[in-house]
């Protein structure tokens, strides 16, 4: 089911959480709402769910205007950041809840409910826990039960608020992949909120970057990484080095491989990903020295110090595969030459 938001705005007192959000999400997508904390992403999710009312604008779910519908009438499934499982009910009763509160006329009988509940618990691979209470489960298990509970009402849209936020790193990695596979299997339009760009890139088919209540960019993870729309997205979506034209000479840019085209003005800033910087050992008297490096698994992150024309030092980060770094045989304090393969210019 497609989701269309038009002109959504929300204020909390004097604080304006969302301004004029327009967003279209085609059916079957798995979308990440990505942004720093306080950017309005959770508010937007709660407005789509109906847990929060929008001040103005419209919410269309599958072409139907649901702006005025109560949360219980929107046909959505919501997974809360801290799961909000019913702690006085067993896992089984938690999952069955959505079916049991249905109107008598459409409510399935207990046998059907039991059958479906067990099927859902098997889907999340936790049927063996059906007699437990939420307090007896681990974080990852609670997360999956919360998901099963939300899926029990066959929602046309699945909304997840920071689904992996409260889990430890290894569980998070597993669950991300599991969620992606599950989405592939069920193909229900899903939106999840996250502040972790890596998570958004890894799980989502579409990423919506939010900042200060506005949408900065929407696109596939590759699009957003390779063609960031502005400096905010470029910085938020991955590591970048910023080179301000006013701090360097044009000659220097040309020497490292970045020709200055006409639209670049003296206020322009070049954003360079660490893996787009190449370094070579040199005996020239260049103002770039190798300060330190860290192992990030397959990659090495190299910390360089560049002395600016005004005499101040500037930290520059480069990344390269382990093997390549070994071949260069660099030591701390070595002088190096920079080569920049690619940069995004922002004004």
């Amino acid at each position: 089911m497609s989701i269309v938001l038009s002109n959504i705005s929300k204020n909390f007192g004097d604080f304006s959480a969302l301004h004029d959000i327009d967003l279209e999400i085609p059916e079957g997508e798995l979308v990440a709402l990505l942004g720093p904390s306080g950017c309005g992403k959770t508010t937007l999710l709660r407005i789509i769910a109906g847990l929060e009312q929008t001040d103005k604008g419209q919410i269309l779910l599958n072409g139907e205007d649901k702006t005025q519908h109560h949360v219980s009438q929107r046909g959505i499934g919501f997974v809360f950041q801290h799961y909000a499982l019913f702690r006085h009910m067993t896992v089984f009763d938690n999952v069955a809840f959505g079916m049991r509160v249905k109107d008598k006329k459409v409510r399935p009988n207990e046998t059907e409910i039991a059958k479906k509940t067990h099927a859902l618990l098997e889907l999340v691979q936790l049927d063996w826990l059906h007699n437990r209470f939420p307090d007896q489960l681990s974080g990852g298990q609670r997360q999956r039960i919360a998901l099963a509970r939300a899926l029990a009402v066959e929602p046309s849209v699945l909304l997840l608020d920071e689904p992996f936020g409260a889990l430890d790193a290894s569980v998070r990695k597993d669950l991300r992949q599991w969620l992606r596979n599950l989405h592939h299997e069920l193909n229900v339009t899903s939106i999840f909120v996250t502040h972790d760009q890596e998570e958004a890139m890894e799980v989502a088919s579409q990423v919506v970057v939010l900042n200060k209540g506005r949408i900065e960019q929407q696109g596939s993870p590759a699009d957003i990484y390779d063609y960031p729309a502005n400096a905010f997205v470029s910085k938020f979506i991955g590591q970048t080095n910023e080179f301000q034209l006013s701090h360097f000479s044009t000659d220097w840019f040309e020497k490292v491989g970045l020709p200055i085209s006409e639209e670049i003005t003296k206020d322009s800033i070049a954003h360079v990903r660490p893996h787009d910087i190449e370094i070579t050992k040199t005996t020239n008297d260049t103002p770039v020295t190798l300060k330190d490096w860290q192992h990030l698994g397959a990659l090495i992150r190299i910390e360089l110090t560049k002395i600016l024309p005004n005499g101040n030092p500037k930290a520059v980060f480069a990344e390269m595969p382990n093997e390549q770094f070994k071949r260069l045989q660099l030591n701390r304090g070595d002088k190096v030459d920079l080569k920049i393969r690619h940069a995004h210019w922002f004004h």
Partner: protein
Amino acid sequence: MSQSRIMPAFRPTISFTLLYLSLVVLIPLSTLVFKSFQLSFDDYLNIITNKRVVAAFRVSFGTALGAAVIASFFGFIVAWVLTRYTFSGKRFFHALIDLPFALPTAVAGIVLATIFQPSGMLGKFLKTNFDLQIGFKPAGIVVALIFISIPFVVRTVEPVLQEFDSRMEEAASSLGATRWQVFTKIIFPNIFPALLTGFALSFARGVGEYGSVIFIAGNLPYVSEIVPLLIITKLEQYDMPGATAIALTMLVISFLLLLLINLLQNWVRKRSGQL
């Protein structure tokens, strides 16, 4: 008791607890038991099966039970309002709730008796409009007990309501539950153990209450005479054995009822995974 206990200081704390229980609770209560042993069993039975005594027991436990039920209901609503809504004068309300704790119960009794007596402000209104008399009737006792015991319910339910995770309500709504279903299936089951505690406290308080009741009850034997008053009456007549026999019986019944409520509470908690 073994050395590998995770929580330290088991020995000193349990010793202190036992010391406290024996000095303050067990020794005085066992004195009561020993005193009543001066009676033969037949005498004891005679005293407590006396019609006037049985009637007083009925009045005491009946009114305490009724008052506890009503206080639980209204106390829950008051706690709900105080935790769920913000309104002006809320702090004032908070202070007002605790007032019955601090007020000498006799003062409460006299005030209630004044307004509920047939010629009093509310008494007259009820009499003329509904032909209802509260003062000097068992109903008057219930009114006094509600006044005394509402804060017990409010103050036990309130913190639980306050800590209640409202996301659970949102989750239930998102699953299609109506507001009523959210209340009956999500909120109430989580509050119920606390409400039972409040009920038990107000019941216990109601059974033992003396000061506020005697002014409004009318103290008519067989109708509105409570057990504590009967005990005092016996004492005034230097009928020590009679007083202890009644007191002991009251003690045992109260203990059994509170134990029952406790077991019920345990059962509720276990059934809802809170143990």
